[in-house]
């Protein structure tokens, strides 16, 4: 009798902590993420400490920072990723603000703003080359307006930045709009009845409630921009001005077949990204992060 009782109570004690048969449902997901994400990542990490040419386990990392051509990629990537993410988030705010509430043609306008997602990197690249190229429509219009020489906007930093904005803006906009729609509109109405002007409502109510969402939006936009690869090759100058970390990692690993060094660069890429995201998320902890929907 006592044995049966003990057994039952253990089951209940576990259930009390949330451990019961439902957790078996986690098994496929957990196995999957360990097998296809954690294991390869750790494998890459240990591989990066086994340099191809032997020597110190840290040789790959030492090489990376001693070789200016490689070390520079960190700054090049940040210098593309940070402005692109910042621009996409900041530009999303006023536009998302105008898109709140219900009005005619809202769905059409949202769709229009989201369409660049469908363009893909190659069409964007081809389009940028053709449109902003020295004989493209943009420069033709500039010349017609009296410019002395065509602006150089492709095969350099600007081309890649434009490409990142075109592909990244729709995501940033959708997320911002979604966060903004989550803020209970009666909060602003309440502030209005208390005498807050439009500007004051924006500053004291909307912005503080939106800021944590913007931090997340910035992080996701940054990840997107930081991973830049195909457009840096196609509209950038992949051997120089836009020699980003992705290109370095790819070329080392799959073109030069130095998987150890390639993994090391990939790990450094992850590290840089985690640092940036970490800083943003730490700043986010200083903000209010509770419900933004008022009550209910």
């Amino acid at each position, binding site marked *: 009798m006592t044995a049966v009782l003990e057994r039952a109570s253990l089951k209940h004690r576990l259930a009390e902590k949330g451990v019961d048969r439902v957790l078996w449902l986690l098994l496929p997901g957990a196995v999957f993420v360990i097998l296809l994400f954690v294991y390869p990542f750790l494998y890459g990490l240990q591989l990066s400490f086994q340099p191809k040419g032997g020597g110190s386990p840290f040789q790959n990392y030492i090489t990376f920072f001693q070789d200016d051509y490689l070390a520079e990629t960190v700054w090049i990537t940040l210098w593309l990723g940070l402005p692109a993410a910042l621009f996409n988030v900041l530009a999303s705010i006023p536009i998302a603000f105008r898109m709140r509430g219900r009005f005619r043609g809202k769905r059409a306008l949202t769709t229009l703003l989201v369409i660049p997602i469908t363009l893909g990197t190659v*069409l964007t690249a081809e389009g940028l080359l053709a449109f902003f190229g020295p004989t493209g429509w943009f420069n033709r219009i500039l010349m017609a307006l009296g410019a002395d020489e065509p602006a150089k906007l492709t095969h350099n930093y600007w081309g890649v930045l434009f490409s990142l904005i075109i592909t990244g803006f729709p995501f940033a906009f959708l997320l911002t709009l979604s966060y903004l729609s989550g803020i209970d509109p009666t909060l602003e109405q309440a502030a209005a009845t208390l005498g807050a002007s439009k500007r004051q409502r924006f500053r004291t109510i909307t912005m503080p409630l939106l800021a944590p969402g913007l931090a997340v939006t910035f992080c996701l936009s940054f990840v997107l921009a930081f991973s830049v690869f195909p457009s840096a090759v196609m509209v950038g100058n992949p051997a120089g001005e836009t020699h980003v970390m992705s290109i370095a990692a790819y070329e080392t690993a799959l073109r030069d077949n130095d998987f150890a060094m390639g993994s090391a660069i*990939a790990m450094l890429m992850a590290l840089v990204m985690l640092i940036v995201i970490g800083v943003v998320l730490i700043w986010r902890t200083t903000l209010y992060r509770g419900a933004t929907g008022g009550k209910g």
Partner: protein
Amino acid sequence: MRLTARPIVWLTWGALAFFMLNLVGIVGAVVTNSFAETWFGTWLPDGYTGKWYGEAWRDYRLLDVLGVTFQVAIAVVVISVLIGVPTAYALARRNFPGKKLLNVLFLLPILMPPMTYGIPLATVLYKFHLAGSMFGVIAANLVPAVPFVVLTMTPFIEQIDTKIESAARMCGANTFAIFTRVLAPLLVPGILAASILVLVRTVGMFELTFLTAGPTSQTLVVSLYEAMSSAGIRPQQMVDSMAVIYTGSMLLLLVIALRFVNPTQLVTRLKEP
């Protein structure tokens, strides 16, 4: 709701219009070129033709490529839903030791640039001779897809009242019946939304497919990139017509997606008054 035109409003719409104008120019340039006989250094091409589409279709074997793309995308959607939904259910319904760790594990593949785990993953796949095959491409694409399903489905399941399950249990339904008869119909809209987003993401995913695909397992994005980097062999117009085909199919997917997903409610759901 006052219609006073303040400068910030005009600035916003003005900037947006400028952005859109450039976008139209960018897309227009590609579309125009895909129909151009020859176009070099003038406002508009010398003549128009539709032949590049036919040639691109044949030369790049687009039927095969589209077939591969379709197979990969469907496989990724089905597998990621099968793995992701049960996981999301457990995460939504239970608090257990180690839940935070698991949550982080499911968040990381979405947060990490694909290159960072793609290169080690490709290395591992090459080690086990799985790279270059359809299997490798599907496996690689699942890495961000499964967490994506988990992430979108967890809040969706959380908002379904647990009392509904209790009620079904009180009516005598067992766990299996609860899943198939009660939860599944309620989850369909969420699963549909997540599936479509995964589909769009997979068709558009460049890096992971690029790193793991072989000549017979390329999806449309990757063969497009290959076609562009090896340009010079074939006329630019062919690459452009292929890019237009890609964008056309993505647009179709997106229009379908927007039928089912309200883009403004991706993060939070607030009842509209």
